[in-house]
């Protein structure tokens, strides 16, 4: 059981790393506790970004039962669109959102109308294989144009600004902004789904496609709008990712996986659930990374597998997938 070896290893490491266990550390205990509190806080804020990955994924699954395997690569594509915008116009990455969001939304609309609408139907295979092919195409196209070099967007002073929240804890303005944006995006989507005509169209096609069409909805157009909305969220997530960390053409699939894990943990169809799911993955990764740098990603995946084993319907399930 090769997979179990690290798990046991982690348990051993955990016990020796627990605050207060080592002898002679009593004077440092409060410092250590603050450090752990800080780790968890960073994880929660990171979870906001994962929730944004998840919200776009959850949105299109909810409306047209499509799982977009290229979702992560589209996030990375948005980061590169932002990179080009920033480099040609010389503007701040956060300002570049004014351009990146509409560009990605338009791309989403076209992608759905031209390609993805043709794959929808009872058969699972075409949408999976076409979006998988799309993922490989985007990755290699980015590799061709931008090489495998790591890039990062520089947002200026806001990157190092932080707020003291007492008790020796400080949060960065950027991670806080990122989390606030995630909450705003999810609240916005929730409002759009349940309070607007477009949301009603989304829910109608989701419930019953032929009947929605009989009621005068153009499903192809509704689906394309859903994909445009999904990629608008992707654009925001991509820019925030690019400001936060290094990116290169190969990191897309991992972003897809984080978003997917957040969707499953949160429960299918629940937008607020994706926020909870994202936060759980973020906190698990932060704790894992603190225990051992090699444990960063593995801890997130293990949190996902534990939820899958104990509560496969997720924490706040809404629809049966």
């Amino acid at each position, binding site marked *: 059981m*090769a997979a179990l070896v*690290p798990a046991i*290893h982690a348990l051993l490491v955990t016990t020796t790393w627990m605050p207060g266990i080592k002898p002679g550390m009593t004077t440092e205990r409060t410092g250590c506790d603050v450090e752990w509190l800080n780790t968890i806080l960073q994880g929660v804020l990171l979870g906001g970004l994962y929730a944004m990955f998840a919200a776009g994924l959850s949105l299109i*699954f909810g409306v047209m039962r499509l799982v977009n395997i290229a979702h992560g690569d589209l996030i990375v594509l948005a980061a590169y669109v932002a990179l080009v915008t920033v480099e040609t116009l010389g503007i701040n990455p956060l300002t570049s959102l004014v351009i990146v969001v509409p560009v990605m939304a338009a791309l989403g609309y076209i992608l759905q109308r031209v390609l993805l609408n043709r794959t929808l139907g009872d058969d699972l295979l075409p949408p999976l294989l*076409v979006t998988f092919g799309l993922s*490989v195409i985007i990755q*290699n*196209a980015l590799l061709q144009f931008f090489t495998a070099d790591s890039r990062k967007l520089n947002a200026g002073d806001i990157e190092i600004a932080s707020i003291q929240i007492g008790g020796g804890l400080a949060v960065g303005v950027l991670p806080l902004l990122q989390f606030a944006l995630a909450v705003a995006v999810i609240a916005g989507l929730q409002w759009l789904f349940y309070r607007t005509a477009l949301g009603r169209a989304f829910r109608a096609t989701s419930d019953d496609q032929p009947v929605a069409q009989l009621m005068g909805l153009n499903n192809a157009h509704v689906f394309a709008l859903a994909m445009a909305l999904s990629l608008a969220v992707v654009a925001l997530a991509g820019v925030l990712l690019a400001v936060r960390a290094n990116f290169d053409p190969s990191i897309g699939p991992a972003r897809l996986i984080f978003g997917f894990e957040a969707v499953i943990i949160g429960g299918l169809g629940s937008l607020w659930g994706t926020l909870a799911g994202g936060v759980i993955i973020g906190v698990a990764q932060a704790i894992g990374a603190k225990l051992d740098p090699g444990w960063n990603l*593995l801890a997130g995946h293990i949190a*996902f597998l534990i939820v899958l084993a104990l509560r496969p319907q997720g924490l706040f399930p809404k629809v049966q997938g």
Partner: protein
Amino acid sequence: MSDATSIRVEHSNRASRIGLAIVSGAVIALAAAPWWADRASLRLLSEIYAYVALASLWNLLAGYAGLVSVGQHAYVGLGAYVLFALAMLAGVHPLVAIPIAGFAAAIISVPVALLMFRLRGHYFAIGTWVMAEVFRLSAAQVSALDGGSGTSLPAAVILSIAGTRQMREFVVYWIALALAVAILAAIVMLLRSRYGLALTAIRDNELGARSNGVDVARVKYLVYVAVAFGTAMVGALIFLQKIRISPDTAFSVNDWTAFVIFITVIGGIGRIEGPIIGTLVFFVLRQTLADLGAIYLLILGAVAIVVMLKAPKGLWGLVADRFGWQLFPLERRLVIGGKQPS
């Protein structure tokens, strides 16, 4: 005559008898390749066999059982790592380690399937990818095999395969051919059995299969475990030939999943001949376009998308449906009293 009331099922027809003769002839010629091919060709042929085997296994999983996994690289890497661990740490002969790697993967796939089958349809696909990531990250933590940086088989292990370098290459070549032939033969036998009938029914209409008494969940479970067994053996052999292993190469999604999926889709998913035709097309494309680097993968992805949308039965499907060809005796025709009902 008792013959008058006997009912039996005929599997072969004229096309399949010709097909089987062609396949048999090809296998004999390929088995003799060490006498007519140079070293580079032998390596290329071994690689082709590995892809035929991997694609045939994925085809069984996705094309027949409807389990669209995008995480089969989990088992390629697992098999490879079990072989390296057994050969380097436990002193097991590398050729003996190949079937053990298969069994190890089959055992591990049992709890993995339990977890993954909780995810429906599309989400199953991404779930398998998560599992492969978990395997890769775990392999990077195994310090006895040099973790993330990877390791090489020591000379003593390699020498134990055969005394001379030439003989070693021949032995590995023959095993690669034998493994691919065995996997294909096993799939043909499986499809001719009751389980094959169940699998074909599931492929054509899952709900219909269930309503006719097929235990769909059980069949899927068995296929998942059997495919993990075969995939891990192929993975073990691939890395025995490469001699060097690292988590990123052993658990490469591009090499062991993307290529395999494209091969199967281009050749014809849900047909046993598809992966063979797809592999040949894949290697012809690779030998001609390999200089293009990233563009090559881009073209491959685009070709797969076009085939999926325009010819969902793949290249073999286009030809076979038109001329009624089949390479393997898989057809089922009822024969009553020695005569076929018309």
